[in-house]
C-alpha cells in the first residue's frame, strides 16, 4: 500500500476536477449549485475504506475543493423586478467549512481489548406460544447469547392482535417467567436493538451465571418450554464445527491460489479487489428493488465514479493493474444496463458465479412465483476475525417475504460518518450464503445497533431463501482475508 501516492492521486484528481469544472458549469447553463464532482468523494471513500488515506486528510481535500469550486462560481443574478440589466447578485453558498471534528465525526472504534465474559453462543430453535386477553402469537427463540454485554435470547416473533389495543403488537415478555437449572429466576426485557422485521433481543435480568444448562421459559397460561443450553455452541477465536477459519478450505475445496473458474478466489483477492466486490454486492442487492425494464437512478448513482475509484485503488497499490475485477464490474454494470461508470477496463466475458446466480434469479426467473415463506432457524457460527471485526451469526428467519439473519459484531466496529462530504465507512464485510440448491444469496446490512462495545447486526439476504436447507455455505470476506464454512441450520419452523 502506498499512502503517499494515494493522497497525491486524490489531490491531482481534485485539480483535474477543478480544471474541468468551469467548462462543465458553462455547459450546464451556469447552474448556481453545481455540487462537488462525484468521482472525487468516491475515490476518497475508497482510499479511506482500504486504509490508504486517513479520514481527516480525505475530508480536508474535499472541503478545500468544495470551497475552491464555490469561490469560482459566478454570482447569480436574481430574477424578478430587478432582473435585466439592473439585476442584483443573489446569495452565494460557501460550503467549504471543515466539519471534521465539529460534526461529531466518529471513526472506527479502536479494537477493544477482549472483555472478560462467558462468550456463549448456543443455537436454540424453539417456539413459545403465548396469548392473553388481547394478543396472541409466537416467540421464535433462535439462539442464546451470553457475553460481557449480558445474557439474552435472540428471537423473532409474530403476533395477532385483532383489537389493535397494544401499541406495536409487541409480545408480552414482561409477563413471562424464566428459571434456570440452578434455581435462578429472571425477567425478560424486550429490546429491538435496530433489528428488522419482528426480530429482537430479550435480555435476561439479573444476569445469569455463565454455566447454566437450561432455561424454562413460561408464557402466562402456557406450559414451560425448556431451552437446552448444554448443546455445543461456538465462540470467536476457536475453531469448531460450523465455524470458518480464514484461508482454510473445507475438504474438496480448492486451496488458496487455486480458484474455481469464474469465482472469487479465496485468500488471493487484494484489498482493492475486495472493496470492488463489496460495491458489486451493493449493486446486486439493489436489483430486486427496481424493475428490469428501466435503469433506476440509485443504480446509476452507485456506479458513478467507479472509474475514479478503480484508478485511486491502483494508485494506492491495493489493486493490481491486471486484476480481472474491474472488467467483471464493468460486465456487471453492462448486465444491469448501467452506464456512465467510467471504468476503462473492457467488460469481462465471465462473471463470478455468485453474481451470476443473483442476476439469474431476478432477470431470468420469475422470483415472485416462489416467495419466501415464514420460518425460523437457529444458527451459532462465529466467523473468523476480519480486519479486527468478529461477526457471529445467531439466527435466520423469513418474514414479510424476506430472509433476515440476526448477528452480533464485535471488535473494530465501523461507525457512521455523518459528515456532509459523504466519506462514509460502510459495512466493511462481504457475506454470501449458498443454499443446498447451489444458489447464492448476498447479505446486505439492514440494521446496526451499537451497545456496550457490541453491535446487534441484521443482514437481509438477496434473494430470500425459498428453501429450508439443513446446511448453508457461508462465504465471508474482509479487506485482508476471505473464508468459507459450512454452517448447520437448525430449523425451529420450516417454511
Amino acid at each position, binding site marked *: 500500500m502506498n499512502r*503517499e501516492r494515494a*493522497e*497525491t492521486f*486524490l*489531490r*491531482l484528481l*481534485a*485539480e*483535474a476536477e*477543478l*480544471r474541468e469544472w468551469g467548462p462543465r458549469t458553462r455547459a450546464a447553463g451556469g447552474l448556481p449549485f453545481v455540487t462537488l464532482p462525484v468521482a472525487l468523494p468516491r475515490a476518497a471513500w475508497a482510499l479511506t475504506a482500504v486504509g490508504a488515506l486517513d479520514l481527516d486528510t480525505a475530508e*480536508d*481535500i474535499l472541503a*478545500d*475543493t468544495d*470551497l*475552491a469550486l464555490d*469561490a*469560482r*462560481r*459566478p*454570482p447569480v443574478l436574481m430574477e424578478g423586478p430587478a432582473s435585466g440589466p439592473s439585476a442584483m*447578485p443573489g*446569495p*452565494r453558498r*460557501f460550503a*467549504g*467549512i*471543515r*466539519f*471534521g*471534528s*465539529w*460534526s*461529531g465525526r466518529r471513526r472506527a472504534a479502536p479494537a477493544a481489548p477482549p472483555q472478560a465474559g462467558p462468550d456463549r453462543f448456543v443455537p436454540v430453535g424453539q417456539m413459545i406460544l403465548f396469548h392473553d386477553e388481547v394478543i396472541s402469537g409466537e416467540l421464535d427463540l433462535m439462539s442464546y447469547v451470553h457475553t460481557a454485554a449480558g445474557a439474552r435470547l435472540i428471537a423473532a416473533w409474530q403476533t395477532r392482535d385483532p383489537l389493535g389495543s397494544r401499541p406495536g403488537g409487541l409480545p408480552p415478555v414482561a409477563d413471562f417467567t424464566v428459571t434456570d437449572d440452578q434455581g435462578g429466576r429472571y425477567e425478560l426485557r424486550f429490546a429491538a436493538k435496530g433489528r428488522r422485521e419482528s426480530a429482537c433481543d430479550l435480555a435476561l435480568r439479573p444476569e445469569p451465571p455463565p454455566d447454566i444448562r437450561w432455561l424454562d421459559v413460561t408464557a402466562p397460561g402456557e406450559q414451560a418450554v425448556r431451552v437446552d443450553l448444554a448443546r455445543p455452541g461456538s465462540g470467536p477465536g476457536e475453531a469448531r464445527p460450523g465455524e470458518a477459519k480464514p484461508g482454510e478450505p473445507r475438504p474438496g475445496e480448492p486451496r488458496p491460489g487455486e480458484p474455481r473458474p469464474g469465482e472469487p478466489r479465496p485468500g488471493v483477492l487484494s484489498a482493492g479487489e475486495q472493496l470492488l466486490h463489496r460495491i458489486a454486492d451493493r449493486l446486486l442487492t439493489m436489483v430486486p428493488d427496481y424493475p428490469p425494464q428501466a435503469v433506476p437512478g440509485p443504480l446509476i448513482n452507485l456506479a458513478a465514479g467507479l472509474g475514479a475509484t478503480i484508478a485511486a485503488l491502483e494508485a494506492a497499490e491495493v489493486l493490481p493493474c491486471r486484476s480481472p475485477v474491474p472488467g467483471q464490474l464493468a460486465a456487471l454494470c453492462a448486465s444491469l444496463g448501467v452506464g456512465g461508470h467510467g471504468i476503462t477496463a473492457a467488460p469481462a466475458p465471465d462473471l463470478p458465479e455468485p453474481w451470476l446466480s443473483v442476476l439469474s434469479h431476478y432477470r431470468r426467473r420469475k422470483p415472485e412465483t416462489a416467495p419466501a415463506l415464514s420460518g425460523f432457524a437457529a444458527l451459532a457460527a462465529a466467523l473468523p476475525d476480519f480486519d479486527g471485526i468478529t461477526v457471529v451469526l445467531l439466527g435466520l428467519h423469513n418474514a414479510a417475504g424476506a430472509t433476515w439473519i440476526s448477528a452480533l459484531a464485535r471488535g473494530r466496529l465501523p461507525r457512521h460518518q455523518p459528515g456532509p462530504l459523504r466519506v462514509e465507512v460502510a459495512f466493511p464485510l462481504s457475506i454470501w450464503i449458498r443454499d443446498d440448491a447451489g444458489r447464492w444469496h448476498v447479505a446486505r446490512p439492514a440494521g446496526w445497533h451499537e451497545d456496550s462495545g457490541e453491535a446487534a447486526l441484521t443482514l437481509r439476504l438477496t434473494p430470500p431463501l425459498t428453501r429450508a436447507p439443513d446446511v448453508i455455505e457461508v462465504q465471508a470476506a474482509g479487506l485482508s482475508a476471505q473464508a468459507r464454512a459450512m454452517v448447520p441450520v437448525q430449523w425451529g419452523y420450516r417454511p
Partner: protein
Amino acid sequence: MTTGTNGSWFTSLPSCETTVPCGNAPHTIRWEAGALRLLEHPDPEGEQVLAALGGERARCIEVSEAWARHVSDLSVLAIGPRGPDDQITVGWDDVAAATRTGLGPRPAPAAGQAGARAAQQPARTQVGRPGAALIRSSARQRQLLEAAAAAQRRRDDLLTLLALGYEFQVRLAAQVAVAYSAPGAEPGPPTVQETRVQKARTQKADVQKADVQKADVQKADVQKAEPALVAAIAGRLAPVAERWLGIDPDQVLVRLHHGPGWGSAEMSGREAERRLRVALPVGWLAAVWACGLTLTGRHLVVAVDQPGWPDARVLGLRAPGAEPELLDVHADADGTWNVRH
C-alpha cells in the same frame, strides 16, 4: 503593520494595493517587499490590544491577522488561483454574507467582558449537581461548538484572503510555498554554473551544521506535505504546459525536485500516451509562478537566476529535454514579462 517575510523571493514582484471596506470607509492595504502594510492604521498593535479588551476590531486588522494565520497553510494553494485566467469571484459582500450566516458562535469574550455580561443575566435556578453523563454530554457539546466556531473562522479567513484579489492571492500562495521550501533552496535561484554541472554547494562547516539542523525539521514537514505540493505545482504548471506545447493538461506529470539544480522536464510517448514529466522544486511556485514568469518568450521558465523588478534574469526551456537558457527579461507596465534581445 507588517507580517513576517521569508527573504528575497519577492524581489521580482512589484508592490500592489487594494481597498478594503473598513468601518465606514474604504481603506488601502498594500503588499510591499513581502509584507502587508495597513496604510490607514498607523498603530495596529495598539488596535489589537483594544480589540482584545472588547473594542471593535477593524476589518483591516482582521485581514492582517488572517494573512498571518495562513502563511503556511497548504489550503491556500488548494483553493487559490491557478493562474491569471482562473477567475475567483469572491468579493467583500460575499465575506460579509458568509460571516453573518455562520454556523457557530463567535469566540468566547474576554474575561472582563464575560463577567460584565454575566452580571446582567438573571440568576439561574439551582437544579442540583449534574450526573457524570450530563457533564460528559455538556463537555462534548462545548467541544463541538468550539470546533464549529474554529471551522467558521477558518472559512471566513480564507474568504477574506480571496476577497483581496488576484495580486494578493498569488503573493500569499508564494509565501506558503516558501514556507515549505528547504533551506538553501529558497527560490533562490541556482546559478547557471550549478545548473550545468549539477554540483552541490559547499558551505563552511559551522554554517552547514546550523542549516542541516533546520533542514531536518523542514524536511519532515515537506515530506508530509509533498502530495499537496505536487498537486499545487501540477495545477499551475498544467495550463502553462498546454499553452507552451499544446499538450492536454491531464498529460502533465509532476514530481518534486529536491537538491541542487532546477529539476528536469522530459517528453515521452505519442498522442494519448504522450506525457510531459516535470520535476520542479517547491520554490518554483514563489520565484516563477507567483511572479508571472512561467511562460516568457515561448520559454518555460524553470528558475530565476537574478530576481528583480522590472528586470530579471531567468532560466528558460525552449523545449522539453533542452538545456535551459539564460534569459534577460523585462516586465511591462501591465506586468507582462518579455525577453530582452
